[in-house]
Every structure is written in C-alpha cells, then in structure tokens.
C-alpha cells in the first residue's frame, strides 16, 4: 500500500503549488465517466488540469483519508469507519445488469434464481427451459467495486462459485458473454449494448427509468468522497458543482448512468 501512497504523493507534491490542478483518484468503474466530464470541463475552462486516476475504490478511499487525493471516487458504499472520516456525495447511481447472449430465450430471473445460478447450485440452462447446456458464469475478480456491489446487492451472503470465469473489467465480461451462447454475467447498466441481452430481475427491466422509479434494486452509488473538515480548493469546489449541476448530470445520464441523489 505504501508504494501507492508514495506514488500518489509524488504526483501531488509536484502540483500542490498549482491551484489549477486537481487530482481525482479511485474506482475504475467511476473513472471513465469522470474522465469524460473532466475532458469537457477542461475544454470549457482554459488552463486547468484535472488528473483522473483509476486505482480502485478502496485505494481511492484510502487516498482521500490520507489527504493525498483531494477528491476520491468510490463505486461502493463507505463502511462505518470510513464514513467517520470522509464527506461523501452521490454523483450518480449505476445499476448492475445481469446479461446473457442475445440468442438466450431467458427474459426474467427472480433474485433467488440469480443467487442459485451464481452460487453454482443450478448448472444447466435446462432449469430455465433452455437446452441442456452448462451455464458459463462470468464474474469480476475479488476486490473490485463491481464484485463487491454484486456480492452485497445480489448475492447477500451466498458465496459465488469458484468455477466462475473471472475477468478484470466490465468490457471483458461483456465480450465473453457476447460470444458464448451459454454465458451469463453482470456488468454496469451503462455499458450494456446490443451485443448482449440484459434480463429483467423480479419482473423489472433494468433501465434508467426503472432505477429512477426505485423499482430496479441492483443499484449502487458512485460517490465522490473527501476528507472531513478540509477546506476544498476553488477548483475542486467548482468541479464538484459542475458534476452535480444540470450540465454534469445530463452528461452522466447520457452515458447511461442514473442521476445521483443529493447529499446522503
């Protein structure tokens, strides 16, 4: 861990004197969206530099606690100890979609069925009226925010089978599911496209509208966190306002996320 803090520190050291530089670090799930916002923001504001680093939620939260990063991104809820030390705001929400191959006739799964599939209890598509083919599970690796959110929101304590294929990114899961007619996986709703099919959960379609209405429940927050009682730089304040403001929120929605709710 310390080398990471050291690397971040070096980075921060080089720029602390410059009030036109803002370092944002953390979740790999959040980073692509914030990077996009940062690019727009930099185009609109001459001379400011926003560095968005994706190191994972936990590393980001750690960096915020240590004060190394002024703002950190997290794609999971803070635990009690972290919430003691950090301010947090939900910049957006992201739904987890369970995806299958487009040729798969499956349209709906109850949450208990999802648990049965991912725990390895049910191993054949015959159980869901499909052909008697083995179900190929594709999941994220332990420690990632998406994995943590899926465990918390969907599995609720039921362990995921070790026989599942593990991939290092949402994109990799999508690609495998798009190619394998027997595969099932989970990814951010934001990056579901026509190469895969997202199934309804408990009869509710995974869509931005259903998430906003509160019907679709596999939803996790994308957080900005920062040290409590630390005066925020002007640039950080402005970027935060931009992200939470109508322009930033519209952009995030356009990218497939769901609007954040204001401070929790």
């Amino acid at each position, binding site marked *: *861990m310390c080398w990471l803090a050291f690397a971040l520190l070096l980075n921060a050291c080089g720029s602390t004197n410059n009030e036109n530089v803002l370092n944002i670090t953390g979740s*790999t799930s959040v980073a692509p969206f914030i990077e996009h916002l940062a690019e727009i923001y930099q185009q609109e504001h001459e001379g400011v530099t926003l560095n968005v680093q994706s*190191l*994972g*939620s*936990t*590393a980001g939260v*750690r960096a915020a606690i240590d004060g190394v990063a002024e703002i950190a991104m997290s794609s999971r809820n803070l635990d009690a100890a972290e919430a003691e030390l950090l301010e947090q705001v939900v910049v957006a929400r992201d739904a987890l979609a369970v995806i299958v191959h487009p040729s798969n006739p499956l349209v709906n799964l109850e949450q208990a069925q999802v648990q049965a599939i991912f725990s390895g209890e049910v191993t054949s598509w015959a159980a869901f009226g499909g052909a008697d*083919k*083995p179900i*190929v599970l594709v999941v994220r*690796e*332990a*420690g*990632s*925010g998406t*994995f*943590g959110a899926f465990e918390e929101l969907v599995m609720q304590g039921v*362990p995921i089978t*070790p*026989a*599942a*294929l*593990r*991939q*290092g990114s949402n994109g*990799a899961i999508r*690609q*495998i599911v798009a*190619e*394998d007619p*027997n*595969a099932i996986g989970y990814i951010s709703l934001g990056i579901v496209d026509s190469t895969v099919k997202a199934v309804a959960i408990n009869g509710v379609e995974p869509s931005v509208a259903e998430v906003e209405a509160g019907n679709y429940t596999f939803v996790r927050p994308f957080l900005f966190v920062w040290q409590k009682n630390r005066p925020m730089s002007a640039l950080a304040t402005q970027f935060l306002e931009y992200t939470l403001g109508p322009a930033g929120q519209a952009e995030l929605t356009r990218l497939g996320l769901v609007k954040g709710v204001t401070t929790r």
Partner: protein
Amino acid sequence: MKERAISIMLLVAALGALLALALITYFVFQSGLPLILEVGLWNFLSGTTWNPTADPPQFGLLPMIVGSLWLTVGSLVIGVPLGIAVAVFMVELAPPRLAQFMRPAIQLLAGIPSVIYGFIGLTILAPLLRSTFGGPGLSVLTGAIILGIMILPSIIAISEDAIRAVPRSLRDGALALGETHWQVISGIIIPTARSGIVASVILGMGRALGETMAVIMMIGNALIIPYSPLQPATTLTSNIGLELAYATGAHRDALFATGVVLFVLIMLLNGIATAFVRRPAFSRRGT
C-alpha cells in the same frame, strides 16, 4: 588510469543490476513472507479455496499451483517437439537460404507483445475450441496452444545453437559408417546436443510459468482445480495480475506471498537450467 576508471564504471553497473535483484527479492519476501508464516506454509500451498475478501479470508494456492503446472506442461507438450523439429530442420535439412529467412522470422515471433497473443487466443482460438469441444472456450488448452507458440523462439534459438555446435567429425563419421541422415539426426546429433536442448526447454518453461497478460486473457481465471484441459483455470501469475490492482491489506500480502512461491519456483528452474548448460556434452569425443 583511464582503463581503471572504465573498469570501475562497469563494476558499478554490474553491482547496480545485482542491487536491483536484491531489492526485488527483499521487497517481495518482506511483503509476502509474514502472511505465509501466519497462514502456515503447508496451508498456503495445499489450501483449495482462494477467497481473499471473505470474512475470514481464505488463502489457498493449490488451484493456482495446479493451474500453473497444467498450463506449463501443456505449452511444453505443444512447443517442445515443434521447436526441436524446427531447430533440426534449420540446421540439418533446410536449404541455407530458407534457413536464413526463417531465423529472423522466428525471432520476430519473440517480438510480438504478449497481449497480442492473448488477443488472438481470446478472439480466434477460444471461439473455435468452444464450438468444437463445447465448454467456455477459455481453458487450459487455449492457453497451452498459444503459450506453446510463444515459447518457440527461445526453444528454437537455443536448440539451434546446440545442434550447430555438434562437431562436424561426429556427423561425418556416422555418415561414413553408412547411417542414414535420419539415423544421424536421431542417434548422434540430438543426443549430443542434449544439454543445450534441455536448457532451451527449461527456459521455455520459465517463460510459460511467468507469462501473465496473455494468460489472463485466455485461461478464464476460474478458481477451481482443473481436471480436464478443456476447463478454465487460474495460474499463480494471472491471479496476481488480475487482483493486484484492487487488493489491500492481507489480500495484497497474500498476492505478494504468491509472488514468493513463484519466485522460488522460477529460481529452482533457473538453477536446473544453469546446471544443464554448464555440464559438458557427454559425447563430445564420441562414445
């Protein structure tokens, strides 16, 4: 005076390389060893469950050790016969101009980034194996085939040198005794070049054991002990590569501890390789 200055500079450079090795060794062991001692070496090596974020976490390396062995053996089964055959062909049978063309072409194979190999495995080979044999396609077999090709350049280059070093007199003598070309190759040349060929195999083995990026993309990374080459698996390296970015605390230490196990394995292999290379060919003077 000038000579002395240059020799001191070279000494410093050499010590710098050694220092880097020492620092890496120290850092990996310092981060990994405490966890091995805490979990217990035997539990760590023989545990069948890897669940680093559970409460309490479980650190069992056996699935990955078996995965690494499967993959390494598989890639050798594919790469070694092919590599030795190519080396023999290039020295003994190929017209010189063809050999001259083949040599740089094979070296080029070593220059292809491993992520490209992985991509080919993922997008071309995996779907092919999936439609032929069923299963997920991402499997030990997919990884072994691609890795077998990846280790070809080192096997061919070193085997070729060893075969070329076989004294002309042995070859000519055997031919003069009326042996066919094939008998000379299989009975004289390969046995004489044996130590170099074995060294090339062990270097290839080291490469196969250490490859990470391509393996992550092709092997599926399931945390099970594979009992068939068509099943997915995880290797020691691919698990480190996959999980390190997000790991903190004991999880991170466990990945460094995985590194320690890998380190020891590769040191052993290198030791064996060095021993083979140093040993003089057994029949340099004929037997």
